[in-house]
C-alpha cells in the first residue's frame, strides 16, 4: 500500500512537470504579445485577458498553409513510420534469428553499422541530399521527404525490433514449426504479434522523428511539400516571435500526434494470460 502511495506521489509530481509547460503553451496561445514579454501571467481572466488572435490567424489567414502542412506532415510521417517499421522488423528479425557472417562482420557489427549512420550531424549530409534529390527530381515532393525520413528511422527501428524479437521465446516458434506452420505463418502469427509492443514503439518513434524534423524539410522542400515544423519556424520572424501563433500552431501540431498515441497506447501493453508484472 505504501509502495503504491509513493508511486502515485511520484507520478503526480512527474505529471505536473510534464504538463506545466504544455499548460503554458495553451495559455500563451491566448495571450497578447505584451502579456507575454512583460510579466509572467498564469490564469486567463484573472491576470490577463485572453485573446483569440492567435487562433483567429490560424483558422483564417493561415488556414490553407496549415491544412497543407498538416496533410504533408501526416503523409510523410505516417508513410515513413510504416515503411521504416516494416523494414526494421524484417532486418531485426533476421538479426535475432540468424547468425550472419561476412569476413569479420558479425550480427553485432551489422547492427552497429546500421546505427552508426545516424551519428553524423545532419547539416554535414544535407547538401548531399539536396544534390541527390535534385538529380532524382524529388525536391519539394512528399515522396522525397518520406524516403529521407525512412532512411533516417531505419537504423533505430532495426534496433528496437531486434530487441523486441529477441524477447520472443524461440521455443514458441519451434513448437509451431513442429506443428507444421509455415515460416511465414510463424512470423505473422507468432513472432510479430508477440513483438507488437515493439512494432508500436518503433512506429511511434519513427513517426515522432519525422513529425518534428526540421533541417531536411527546410532544405528539401519549397512549397508543395512543406511540413508543420517549417510553418512553426516561420512564426519566428525578423520582428521576433509571434508567440500566440506559435503556440496555437504547436497545439495544432500536437493533436494528431497525441491522437495517434491514444490509438496506439493499448498495443504498447502485451496481452498476456499469465498475470502481468505488478
Amino acid at each position: 500500500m505504501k509502495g503504491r502511495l509513493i508511486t502515485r506521489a511520484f507520478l503526480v509530481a512527474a505529471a505536473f512537470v510534464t504538463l506545466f509547460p504544455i499548460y503554458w503553451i495553451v495559455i500563451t496561445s491566448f495571450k497578447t504579445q505584451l502579456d507575454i514579454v512583460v510579466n509572467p501571467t498564469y490564469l486567463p481572466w484573472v491576470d490577463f485577458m485572453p485573446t483569440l488572435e492567435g487562433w483567429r490567424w490560424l483558422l483564417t489567414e493561415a488556414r490553407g498553409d496549415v491544412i497543407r502542412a498538416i496533410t504533408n506532415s501526416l503523409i510523410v510521417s505516417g508513410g515513413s513510420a510504416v515503411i521504416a517499421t516494416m523494414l526494421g522488423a524484417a532486418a531485426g528479425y533476421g538479426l535475432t534469428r540468424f547468425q550472419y557472417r561476412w569476413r569479420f562482420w558479425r550480427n553485432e557489427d551489422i547492427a552497429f553499422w546500421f546505427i552508426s549512420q545516424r551519428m553524423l550531424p545532419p547539416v554535414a549530409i544535407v547538401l548531399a541530399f539536396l544534390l541527390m534529390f535534385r538529380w532524382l527530381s524529388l525536391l519539394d515532393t512528399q515522396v522525397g521527404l518520406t524516403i529521407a525520413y525512412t532512411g533516417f528511422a531505419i537504423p533505430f527501428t532495426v534496433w528496437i525490433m531486434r530487441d523486441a524479437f529477441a524477447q520472443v521465446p524461440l521455443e514458441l516458434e519451434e513448437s509451431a514449426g513442429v506443428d507444421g506452420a509455415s515460416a511465414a505463418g510463424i512470423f505473422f502469427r507468432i513472432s510479430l504479434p508477440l513483438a507488437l509492443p515493439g512494432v508500436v514503439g518503433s512506429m511511434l518513434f519513427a513517426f515522432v522523428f519525422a513529425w518534428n524534423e526540421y533541417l531536411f524539410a527546410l532544405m528539401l522542400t519549397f512549397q508543395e511539400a512543406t511540413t508543420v515544423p517549417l510553418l512553426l519556424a516561420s512564426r519566428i520572424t525578423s520582428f521576433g516571435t509571434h508567440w500566440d501563433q506559435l503556440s496555437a500552431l504547436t497545439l495544432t501540431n500536437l493533436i494528431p500526434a497525441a491522437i495517434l498515441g491514444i490509438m496506439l497506447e493499448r498495443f504498447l501493453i502485451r496481452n498476456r494470460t499469465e498475470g502481468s508484472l505488478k
Partner: protein
Amino acid sequence: MLALSIFPLVFSLGLTFTNVNLFRRVPLRFVGLENWARIFSDEALLETLVNTVIFVGGGVAIQYSLGLALAVALNRGLREQRLMRVLFLLPMMVSPIAVGFIIGRMVFSEGFGPINDMLGALGLPAVAWVTSPGVAKLTIILVDTWQWTPLMMLLILVGLQGIPGEPIQAARVDGASEWQIFRHIVFPLLLPVSITAILIRALEAFKIIDIIRVVTGGGPGRATESVTAYVYNVGAKQGDLAYAASAAYVLLFVVIGVSFLALYVMRRVQARYE
C-alpha cells in the same frame, strides 16, 4: 535505400578534402589534409565537444533514470495508468522548435518566465537560467530532459512487456520484496532494452542543436554550443562546408568511440547477470 545512406557519407567525407565554400564560386580544389590539420588547433571544436559530452552524459543519465522510474510506475496496474501513459508521451511530440521557444525562452526566461517568478514568490533569488554559463548548460539539459524522457519511458515500457511473469510470481511467493524483484529479476532482464534505449537517445543527443540554437544561441560565450551547432554555424551560416564536414567527422569518430565503449561496458554488466 543503401545508396541513400552511403552517398551522403561518402560525399561529406569527400568534402573534407576540398575547399568547397557556399559563399564563393571558386574552382573546386583538393586541399588534401588541410581541413583535418585545422581541426587540431581548433579550440572552439574542443570546447563544443566538451559541452556536447556534458549534455549527453548528464541528459541521458537523468532521462534514463526518470524514464525507467516512470515506465515501472506505469506498469504496476494502477487505474489511471493508461491515461498517464499517453500524457507522459506528450512532450516528445511537441516540436523541438516550439519546445525551445516556449519552454526554453519563455518558461525559463529570466525576465518574464514563470519559474523565476515562482522562485521569487517563495522568497528565493532569481536564477540566471540562460545568462550564466554554468546554469545555461543545466537549462539545456533540463529542457532536453523534459522533451526526451518520454522516449526512454516508451522504449523501456515496451521492454517491460517482454519480461515473463513466472519468475516474478515465483519470487513473490518466496517472499521477495518489490525492490529485490526489481533489482534481481526485472532490471537484469531490461538490460538489452536499456542499452538500445540509451544508445538511441545518446546518438540523438550528440546531435543536439534545435533547443540550443533557440534557447541560448550557443551562448553565453560558447558555454552551451554543441558540436552540431558549431558545425551548423561553420557550414551553413559561414559557408565553410569543407571544414564543417571535417568537424562533423570528428564528432562521428568520437560518437563511434563512445558507443563502442558504452556497448562494451554495458555488455560486461549484462554478462555479470547471465
